[in-house]
């Protein structure tokens, strides 16, 4: 069997931006300064070649500013590369910003027709799909209201609905999956799967590595405007997350720390029964661990994890907020996370905590602080003489006396 043909091809694409230090938008300033902009060149992409085959779901990953979004804009022809060429076969739809081009004063209906036309649907096709689009977006009777009266959720859903119902051969998606409520997200994911099963090609840019690994067949890893690795999703995602960890360093408290920094764990301490900070706890007593965090941007569905190890390095347990269903839609700003134990089942000894903030998949790490807290457990009312943890089993002795 021959391989499917290449439907998206980038050949040696380079894109240069100018980092503008001083922009003279006006003619006067241009003449006075003798030039329009004071700038230096910045190569957002340098000699990137990609071949994406028909029916593939292809992911672009990389750090912020690595060029993946620029690549997507070049593929969708919004940006023109300075060098190299881009070729895309078939009908294209792009989800770069949902509802881009909606006119606030016009009704949902009018905007659907306009947006559909931008995405290349004819009026006849639109008429046929109109009900489906409205249905999928779930805006109901609001369809004849001006879109400025829409909630942000409705706005985005309608935008998504138009773009996805274009029935594209190639769909380009830029990190828009993190919109809407959970039910709508599930609908979107189903729709992507449906397209993918129908043999359509999907190219998506994402930070959320779990989604990429889960959805994509192949992934290209961008770094500083170049493609470091292209290959099966799992391999590339693994290599990428390993490299992110390579940014590890010894922090000011003398512990290992790494992560991309969208969330930073700024402090971790135990609270005793009276609410004071403590590093000595009693075995079997109530205890509460507090994590302080700060975010540099809104983070969707973060997961906090606490790993407890013995002084010898044996992992006692790793508790995550994800696995007990404690998943905030979004975190922004700062706050704290508490992990409460009614009876701390650790036995006498020295223990260490490794605390991390990660994405849903726990592959992409925002902040990991290894061994940040050392604490001591004193003998308490748990009656197990050695080991690390009290399992608290019930003893029962039944005696059958000799007859």
């Amino acid at each position, binding site marked *: 069997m021959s391989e499917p043909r290449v439907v998206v091809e980038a050949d040696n694409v380079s894109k240069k931006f100018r980092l503008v230090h001083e922009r003279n938008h*006006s003619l006067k300033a241009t003449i006075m300064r003798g030039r329009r902009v004071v700038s230096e060149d910045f190569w957002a992409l340098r000699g990137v070649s990609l071949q994406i085959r028909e029916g593939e779901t292809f992911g672009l990953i990389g750090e912020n500013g690595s060029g993946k979004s620029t690549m997507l804009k070049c593929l969708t022809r919004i940006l023109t590369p300075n060098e190299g060429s881009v070729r895309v076969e078939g009908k294209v739809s792009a989800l770069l910003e949902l509802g*881009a081009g909606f006119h606030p004063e*016009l009704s949902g209906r*009018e905007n659907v027709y306009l947006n559909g036309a*931008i995405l290349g649907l004819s009026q006849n096709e639109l008429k046929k799909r109109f009900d489906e689009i409205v249905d999928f977006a779930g805006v109901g009777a609001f369809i004849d209201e001006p879109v400025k009266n829409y909630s942000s959720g409705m706005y985005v859903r309608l935008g998504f609905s138009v773009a996805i119902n274009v029935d594209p051969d190639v769909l380009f998606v830029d990190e828009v999956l993190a919109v809407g409520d959970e039910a709508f997200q599930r609908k979107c994911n189903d729709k992507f799967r449906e397209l993918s099963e129908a043999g359509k090609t999907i190219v998506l840019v994402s930070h959320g590595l779990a989604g990429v690994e889960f959805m994509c067949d192949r992934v290209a890893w961008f770094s500083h405007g170049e493609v470091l690795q292209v290959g099966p999703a799992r391999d590339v995602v693994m290599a990428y997350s390993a490299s992110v960890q390579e940014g590890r360093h010894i922090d000011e408290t003398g512990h290992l720390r790494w992560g991309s920094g969208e969330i930073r764990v700024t402090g971790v301490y135990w609270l005793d029964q009276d609410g004071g900070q403590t590093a000595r706890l009693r075995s079997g007593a109530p205890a509460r661990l507090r994590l302080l965090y700060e975010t540099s941007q809104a983070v969707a569905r973060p997961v906090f994890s606490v790993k407890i190890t013995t002084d010898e390095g044996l992992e006692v347990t790793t508790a995550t907020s994800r696995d007990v269903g404690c998943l905030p839609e979004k975190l922004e700003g700062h706050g704290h996370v508490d992990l409460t134990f009614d009876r701390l089942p650790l036995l006498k000894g020295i223990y260490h905590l490794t605390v991390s903030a990660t994405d849903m998949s726990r592959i992409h790490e925002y902040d990991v602080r290894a061994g940040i807290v050392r604490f001591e457990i004193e003998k308490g009312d748990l009656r197990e003489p050695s080991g690390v943890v009290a399992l608290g089993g019930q003893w029962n002795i039944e005696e059958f006396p000799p007859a």
Partner: protein
Amino acid sequence: MTLVSSYRSSRELLLNLTLRELRSKYKRSFLGWAWSMVNPLMTMAVYTIVFRLFFRANPDPGVDGINSYALFLMCALIPWTFFSSTVMGSIGSLVGNASLIQKTYFPRKLLPASSMGANLVTLGIEMGLLTLVLLGFGDYQALEFLPVTVVLIVVLAVFSFGMGLLVSALNVYFRDVEHFMNIVLLVWIYLTPVIYPLTLPGVQRFLTLLKINPMTEMAECFRSTLYYGRLPTAIEFGYFLAASLVVLAIGWVVFSRLETRMAEEL
């Protein structure tokens, strides 16, 4: 094949963008579409009072003895207004749709084209009404020369679109162009025999200068078919047509060169 389908989808998009321009223009205004009639009528009233009564501008009587400064004025003012609205609208169409340009791909020339299209609808309505009024005054030639007038509108649209392409693309890079064009259009209308007739004694001395301005031929052509009930001269029409094609060519080339980086520059 792709060329044909891309032409077809471009045409549909152009239609949609034009409709959007038209629909959003008078949304939330009380008088709505009536504004598109109020503006020209008010302009007509003001110019008629100032130039006819105060300055005693006195054009040659038109066909069938129509002698109305107001009609004389409107025959050229309506096409002129179309031209100036298209040019300014084109500038706004790129700046106002920055998010569309940055987030989606479609042929960028459709934006100035949609501005031209929306103004063309207004022009059509105004021209229709003007023709009716002229008929009411007994100017039956206006009807007879209607096909010629339509040809003139097409040429005017070409000129306006070309100019719109040129200035809207430049305006993305230099926002001064918008302010500059406001002034240029203000001066330009007075260098064009819209408000006054070319036969005015004071005008005669500058006749050669005025004739260089293609808009002079434009005004004369429209006036010939509508007001004077005669065909435009070959020279007038030829110059107007040639100028329109040249302007379109320049606008097209400049726009094509600048459009590749519009998404970054906006």
